[in-house]
Structures are given as C-alpha cells and as structure tokens.
C-alpha cells in the first residue's frame, strides 16, 4: 500500500475575480521508504502542491478538489484539529530558508524540543534528552553546546540541520523537503543530501524532495515528477527518467544541464519563456516552446497516460 496517494489535486487562487490554477489535476503517490523528487521551475506549482498536502494554503488560495490519502485517511476531510495532529507529528516539513524558518530569539535546542513537547505530550526534561539524541542524529558532535546556541550563531548548513532535526523530531512517516539545499553552497549541499539519504535509509521514513535542480535527483531518490505551469508533465523512476526522458520539456531541461559532460559548443536552450499562470496558452501549456509541436497540441490539452514500467507522460507524442 502507498503511504501517500494524491489524486486529482486542484488548488486555485481567486484574485480580482480571476481564477488561477496553481495546482491543476496533480496525481502522484509515495510509497514507504521512498524519496519522491518533485522537480520544476519557479512558479510551476511544486511548492503549492506540498503546501496543499500539508493543508497550509493561505487565502486567496484554496484547495478546490482532490484527495490526499495519507496513512489511510483523506487529509482534506480531516477537521482542523485532527490535521494539527498530523502536521509536525506524522508529516514533517523542511523549508528552503533556514534563517527565516527558525525563531531568532529562542535557543535552537528549545525549538527542537518544542515540537516533541507538543506532539508527544512529554515533560521538558524528557524532551531535552530526546533533543540531544536528535542533534547527534543530524550530525552535531557536541549537542550540549548546540542546544544552547541561537540561530545567528550557526552557519546556513548547521541551521538546516536544526530544521531537519525539528522535522524528524516526532518520528514522522513522511518528510516534505522544499528546496532544502538551494540557499546553501555546493559542499554544504552535498552534506545535507547525504544526511537526508542516511535518515531515510535508517528508518522507514518517506520523503517528498522539492527542487529546481535536476542534477541532485540523478543520485538521489527513487521516483521523479516533472511539473510545469501547475501540471504534472511526466512521472517515472529516477533510473528510467535520466536514461529515457519522454516529455519534450524534460528532454529540454536535461540537455540544458548536461553541459558539463558534453562537448557541444552551444547549450541546447528551450526557447521562449515560462508562461504566467494567469495567461496560459490554449491546448498543451508547453506547446509555444515545444520543438515537436503538432496542430492538436494547440487545440487540446493531452491527459496523463501510462506508457509502461511506471512511466507517465502528458503529451500528444505518446
């Protein structure tokens, strides 16, 4: 059974009488112990998808329809109270900017133990002990010293470790990591990736890893979903995807980043620009930039089709 099953999720923003579909008919699932990579450019709806799963969409945004079945319950049908019990306890979240996600006036140790006190209903002392263990788990060799420090005393990578500690503090079965390494240097990024991989390997935890950087997914994760203009365009296993990308957009993205290994003189660029969600083209949202565009692509939007071997694609070519 899948740990998380998202079906036909739609999240829209209602601004000045206009409706903007930030997440449009998105379906995917994450099984136990799996890392699912959600990849796309800015504004493609990857973060909105994650926020919808957590039910953290703020007005004027609203989840319009869909199902988010997590551990057998549809999260969209839970009361706010029940949802609070899931958030932070069964599902942990890691954000991109570790400085703004931590409270600057509290010691980092207290911020880690706060989640434990709230969700596990334990005393301060017990929570502190658990926090020390967590700090060690996320790679601090001197947890006592770290516990008493404030966010500004830590480097970006160390702060991100603290946030990871908070996310896993209650032993969640799913962690959603939204661009957790984007604000970090390459070397620090690799340490954080290693840490996350280790945490998943050593527990039954699953992860949704959101990133704009396809390169990271090459050696990380089992399945990958490519989003564009609010829609899922392709889904497959990481191995298959990097060998045999199907959607023209995926192919374009891959050839834009393959530069380092290739010998060509120019980069193969995807022409045009990412459309605004308020002014989407008719038909397939990618057709104005697509090198394989056919008449049908301008008229009608393709649906998600299974090609086999767990490969799904939304394109008229298949």
């Amino acid at each position, binding site marked *: 059974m899948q740990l998380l099953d998202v079906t036909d999720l739609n999240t829209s923003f209602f601004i000045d009488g206009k409706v903007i579909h930030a997440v449009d008919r998105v379906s995917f699932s994450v099984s136990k112990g799996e890392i699912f990579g959600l990849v796309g*450019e*800015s504004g493609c709806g990857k973060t909105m998808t994650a926020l919808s799963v957590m039910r953290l969409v703020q007005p004027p945004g609203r989840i319009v329809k869909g199902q988010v079945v997590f551990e057998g319950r549809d999260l969209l049908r839970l009361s706010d109270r029940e949802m609070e019990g899931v958030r932070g306890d069964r599902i942990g979240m890691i954000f991109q900017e570790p400085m703004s996600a931590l409270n600057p006036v509290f010691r980092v140790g207290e911020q880690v133990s706060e989640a434990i006190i709230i969700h596990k209903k334990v005393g301060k002392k017990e929570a502190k002990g658990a926090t020390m263990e967590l700090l060690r788990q996320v790679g601090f060799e001197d947890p006592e010293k770290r516990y008493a420090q404030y966010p500004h005393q830590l480097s970006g990578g160390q702060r991100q470790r603290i946030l990871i500690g908070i996310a896993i503090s209650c032993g969640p079965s799913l962690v959603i990591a939204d661009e957790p390494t984007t604000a970090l*240097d390459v070397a620090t*990024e*690799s340490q954080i990736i290693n840490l996350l991989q280790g945490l998943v390997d050593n527990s039954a935890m699953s992860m949704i890893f959101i990133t704009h950087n396809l390169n990271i997914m090459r050696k990380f994760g089992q399945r990958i979903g490519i989003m564009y203009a609010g829609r899922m365009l392709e889904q497959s296993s990481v191995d298959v995807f990097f060998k045999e990308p199907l959607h023209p957009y995926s192919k374009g993205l891959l050839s834009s*980043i393959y*530069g*380092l290994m290739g010998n060509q003189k120019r980069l193969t*660029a*995807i022409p045009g620009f990412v459309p605004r969600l308020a002014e989407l083209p008719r038909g397939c949202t990618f057709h104005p930039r697509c090198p394989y565009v056919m008449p049908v692509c301008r008229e009608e939007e393709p649906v998600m089709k299974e090609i086999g071997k767990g490969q799904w694609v939304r394109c008229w070519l298949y």
Partner: protein
Amino acid sequence: MGQVLAVLDLQRVYEVKRSVFSVKKDIIHALSGVSLDLDQGKTIGIVGESGSGKSTLARCILLLERPDGGTISFMGKDLLGLPKGELKSLRKKMQIIFQDPYSSLNPRKKVFDTIAEPLLFHEIVDRKGVKGKVMEILKNVGLDEGFVNKYPHEMSGGQRQRVAIGRSLTTDPALIIADEPVSSLDVSIQSQIVNLFLDIKDRTDIAMLFVSHDLNVVRFVSDEIMVMYKGRVVETGTKDEVFLNPLHPYTKMLINAAKGEFSRREEDAAFDESKGCAYYPRCEQRKAHCRDSIPRLTGSKEHKIACFPESGGKSAHSS
C-alpha cells in the same frame, strides 16, 4: 591580442566587530594575493562558493571598493593611481552585469530609456540617432521592437537580464564583469542567456570576467577558469586543463558535485586559517603539514594550483 586587464597581488581586508558591543575586531581576508591577466576577446570564469571572494574581486576591479594592496592595470593604465577625471572616462570602458536584473533596472524607466540614457550621456549617438541605435542593441540581445515601451515589471527574468546585458553593451566596453548573471533565472532560461553571452563573444572583442558558483555555466563561456576558496586562488588554468584534469581537491569536489556525485567529508572543528591551507578542514587528501603552512600557487602558464604535491595535488606540470 592586447591585454585588457592585469591584476597583481590584490589584497582586501575587512574588519568585523565580534559583536555589537565588542571592541575586539576580527580580520577577514576577503582577497589574499589574487592575480590575473585577461586579454581582448577572452573570458575568465571565476568559480567559488559564497565567501570565496569572487564578488569582492569583481567589485575591486571596478573600484566599487578600494583594495588594500596590489595593483590593477586596465587598458595599460594603473587604476589605483589615476586622477579622478581620467578614471571617469575609463569607467565607461568597463561594465558590470548583476545577478538580479529586477533590482539592477530602474522600475520607473521603460526599456527604451534604460538603454538610451547611457548612449546620450556618454555622447555615443545624438538625439536623432538614438532610436536606431537602441533598436540595434535590442536586436543584438534577442528582443524585438515591441519591448521598447515595456517596464521591468512587465517582463520575465530572462527578458530583464537581456535588457541589462543590452545596456552594458551601449558604451562599447572593453571589459564586462558578469556577477552570477544567470543564477536567479530558471534552468530553461539560463541556457538562453548563456548562449547570448556566447554570441557576444563571437561578435565582439570584449574581454569578460564571468563570476559564478555554477561550474556547468562557467564551462560554456570561459577560456580560462580560476577557482577561488576563502579569498585565495586555489587552481587556475585553461578551461580544458581545469575541467578534464582537475588537480586541487576542492576543484575535484566541485566538479563531482556538478555531476551529482557528492563528497562524504564533513567539515572538522576549529582550525587557524592564518597558519595553514584554508581548505584543510574539508580536504579529502590532507596531510599533517597542510595545517602548518600555506601552499603557494605554482605550475605552468596553462595550469597552476595551490596545494602541496604530497597531498594528492600532484604537480601541475611543475617546471
């Protein structure tokens, strides 16, 4: 080919108070002994992570910051010793392109005015000729006539960066410094802008310093690569030498990371950087003596590294 820029032994030191109330100051060497030579029509890619000093280097060359030591010679003139008047006329020969095209363009100016202003200010064309020249520049950066009346907020990030690049070309510069020019753009747009830089290289004799933390991007536009770490140059050489035969452990780590192969080494505890190699705490090939002395940049013209040979750095064609 003529030399455009020669930087020798550049130093830049920042003093930082330990805390708001502290009297004691920490000294940070943002640049220690950085040298480079750049010829007409060539591009040097400067690679490093945040805090490596790559942006400080760019700012010092443009004299947006005054270096604390060393010399900068631009088009044969010593920039640091030049009287103000002469400096002003040289300045138009150097241009900078910033990372975020939204904050570097004036939000109240239409594209036309953004590009026309430097043309008129430096008297490159007169009022009659300005329209034609603006159109020509826009065409060169891949924007059509419809853009002249747009404001920055009406354009996408990639289009804004094209305008910023267009503006930098107005004064017919000898040197363009591009500081992370594609980092804030989407992946599918990055390659378009990289190709635009390649076009400019093909078409003109402009020398470029291309600063970026992204090796993939740097490789495409550069003839030479300079890798910086904590204010020092750790490896420098021709593009192929550095990419196909990287010698410094830091460069190797960066190239592997760009391929998606991540290093396993964690940074160690405290270490006095003024005494030993600054990369020591993270180095995978370190030896005991790396802690006590700082390696100098040595090697041939094609390839130099700052690493002790016994530490796996091997020799870079040591002559």
